[in-house]
């Protein structure tokens, strides 16, 4: 076993797939940043709001006013450098840091696929993605035709984890036996041409799409892995992601997943892609014939392999942390994020805050729109960690305004997956006294229902 594993670690493979992956990744990231900028979201999400919701432990990461644009610019430039493979290691480290910084600035904008990008770019820091077909080759007049096989396999493994965990998360009674939340989302797509008024309204369609979505997530890594089913699987990937793009406002994510799935194809396929790019680059008149062609070897493998191993153990264990919490995951969301739980809930809430003077008992309600943007208010209203953080912000604010003995109480109603709204937060808990931590939040009222499954 040990020797087989050692042999595996030394098995070489063509560097072409990783080069294509690097180019695809860099280009998609550059487009994402440009698109984000173009829509004006840097301003509406990071510059305009007075207050930002931080991740626990990362409170020091905040937007930096108008300089926030610089972070995005840095991120976009480094994505471009990754794509062309110029100063790759520096570029991918810069990309990972700037992108992760952006992600951590305000959790209002949390998306699983942003987390996926952070995690993937972290992995790429340790991969020789500039070994082949990069500007770095040109500068050093040296190219590597083969790289260790595990480097490409590590990307495949990460993608497989994402799909399989997303599939496991769909194994729950709401998704499978109530067709929720698709049963709410699909009928509202009545505008879609051809399928809107007929197809999307059918109950069996809601169930069929729930079940096939679950099957897709659980099976697609295996279908991509085996050569005989690969093209069929890729067709499914394209169909599935384009279809979800039509249905839901999920931005660049579908395209990123389609490009990512290319990594499963063999080297010949990637060489053909590269030869197309070569034709496009012909005017540049680059003569690579004279370059030295070598086999890529890690010089610091003893450090890098343990890092990669720990990284994957973390990726596999972390999503299961929800098991440590006693209450319903969808309701309390303790352990919900960073676990590939995608499109699983239709959740809405309405939360108001009362500032009370502990001594006199007198109090008043807060108008949330004085402090939060509509998006922040929407996200805050049904997520306990947002509610707590905002309660503290309000407490501090009114304390600094001269209010005495400040207590902050929340009245909250939340509706989950079509259930009637229920009281969410204990109205007698002074949230200003509660501290954020990884411990279960006792002031969340229980869901009067049970969701079985993962």
């Amino acid at each position, binding site marked *: 076993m040990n020797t087989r594993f050692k042999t595996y670690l030394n098995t070489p493979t063509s560097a072409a797939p990783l080069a294509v992956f690097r180019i695809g990744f860099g280009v998609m990231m550059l487009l994402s940043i440009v698109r984000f900028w173009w829509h004006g979201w840097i301003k509406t999400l990071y510059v305009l709001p007075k207050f930002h919701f931080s991740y626990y432990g990362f409170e020091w990461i905040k937007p930096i006013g108008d300089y926030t644009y610089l972070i995005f610019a840095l991120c976009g430039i480094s994505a471009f450098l990754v794509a062309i493979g110029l100063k790759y290691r520096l570029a991918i480290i810069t990309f990972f840091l700037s992108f992760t910084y952006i992600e951590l600035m305000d959790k209002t904008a949390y998306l699983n696929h942003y987390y996926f990008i952070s995690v993937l770019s972290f992995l790429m820091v340790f991969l020789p993605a500039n070994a082949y077909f990069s500007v770095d080759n040109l500068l050093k007049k040296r190219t590597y035709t083969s790289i260790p096989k595990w480097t490409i396999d590590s990307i495949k493994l990460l993608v497989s984890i994402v799909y399989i965990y997303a599939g496991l998360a769909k194994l729950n009674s709401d998704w499978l036996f109530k067709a929720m939340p698709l049963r709410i989302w699909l009928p*509202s797509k009545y505008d879609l041409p051809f399928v809107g008024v007929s197809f999307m309204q059918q*109950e069996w369609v809601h169930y069929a799409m729930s079940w096939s979505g679950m099957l897709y997530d659980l099976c697609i890594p295996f279908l991509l892995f085996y050569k*005989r*089913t690969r093209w069929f699987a890729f067709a499914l990937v394209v169909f599935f992601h384009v279809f979800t793009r039509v249905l839901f406002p999920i931005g660049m994510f579908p395209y990123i997943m389609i490009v990512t799935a290319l990594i499963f194809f063999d080297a010949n396929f990637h060489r053909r892609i590269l030869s197309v790019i070569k034709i496009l680059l012909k005017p540049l008149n680059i003569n690579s014939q004279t370059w030295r062609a070598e086999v890529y070897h890690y010089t610091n493998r003893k450090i890098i392999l343990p890092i990669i191993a720990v990284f994957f153990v973390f990726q596999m264990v972390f999503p299961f942390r929800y098991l440590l919490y006693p209450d319903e995951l969808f309701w309390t969301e303790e352990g919900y*994020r960073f676990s590939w739980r995608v499109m699983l809930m239709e959740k809405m*809430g309405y939360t108001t805050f009362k500032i009370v003077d502990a001594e006199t008992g007198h109090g008043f309600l807060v108008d949330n729109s004085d402090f939060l943007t*509509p998006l922040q208010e929407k996200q805050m209203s049904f997520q306990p960690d947002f509610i707590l953080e905002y309660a503290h912000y309000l407490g501090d604010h009114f304390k600094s305004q001269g209010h005495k003995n400040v207590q902050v109480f929340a009245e909250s109603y939340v509706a989950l997956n079509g259930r009637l709204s229920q009281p969410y937060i204990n109205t007698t808990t002074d949230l200003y006294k509660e501290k954020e931590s990884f411990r279960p939040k006792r002031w969340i009222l229980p869901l009067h229902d049970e969701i079985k499954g993962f």
Partner: protein
Amino acid sequence: MLKKIALVFSLALIVACSSSDDSSQGGTTDTFDRSALLKNLADNIIIPAYQDFGIKLTNLKGSINAFVATPNQNTLDAARKTWLTAYSAWQHLEMYNIGKAEALNQYYYFMNIYPVTVSDIENGVLTGAFDLNTPSYHDAQGFPALDYLLYGLAADDAGIIAKFSTDKNAQGYKDYLTAVINQMDKLTKDVITDWTTVYRDQFVNSSQNTATSSLNKFVNDYIFYYEKGLRANKIGIPAGVFSSTPLPNKVEGYYNQKVSKALSLEALNAVQNVFNGKSFNGSATGASFKTYLDYLETNKEGEKLSMLINNQFDLARTKIQALDSNFSAQINADNSKMTAAYDALQRAVVYLKVDMVQAFNISVDYIDADGD
């Protein structure tokens, strides 16, 4: 083995995704006509309400002009009477902040922002230098300004009439009063003309589920009005729900001292009628939020959401009916009844804003979202 797995999987997917032949029996198609909902709103509720208001506002203008021409007890009484009639009719319109009303930089800003800033009015009267089109005069015009000018200028009617006749600034008062009613008249005509010429069709035909479609905007405006215009402005703010102490001078119709309850009840009726799609002239009901909810919830167990909402409106009405006809007096006598009314109104906000919006799944295109 591999082939078998692939075969089973593709069969499952084909069955799941692509068969549309077996849908004819048992399945339901989207039978809910959102256009019909918008038509019912426009033709049977909104436009009739505007036309009714237009007539009453014209009457108000006439009686104010008569009062300005000859200020005496008779003309004052007539102006007050038409003021109240028009103000009640207005309660049916404030929620329609859509189309021209929105394009005018919020028509309701010019019609019903209270409490008025008395110093702005008095200053305008004194100097003659005021511009009702500027945002700083939002709280110095419309019905609340008329309330002040017709009821609040002096301690008694003789004193008020004197302000418009013998006072050294009488002309200033007359000019200000005339300017206010002319502004209301002009803006209202703009809005009505727009609805009855071009906007009606535009409104009815925009039934898609997008952030800018009239259906989605109307739902948002409706809820916003209920939460802000009705719940907060009429009851919550004066009852001190949002401040350290009650603010009895912030009630609607403060200077009149008799009508804040009547106006609130009228507004609640208007909200509930829109919810149920009840015609403005008559008792017929048509396609509405209620019928849409009932359509969407056909398979749901338990109580109907539309019933919960109607019950909650009814409960709120009972609570408001128990109040003094003058909310200021109620607040000073027993504010707990005011906050009880507020609580009843508040519970319906949750049903509307959370449960109804979730059922409609209104598109809000803030940014990318994957539903988590």
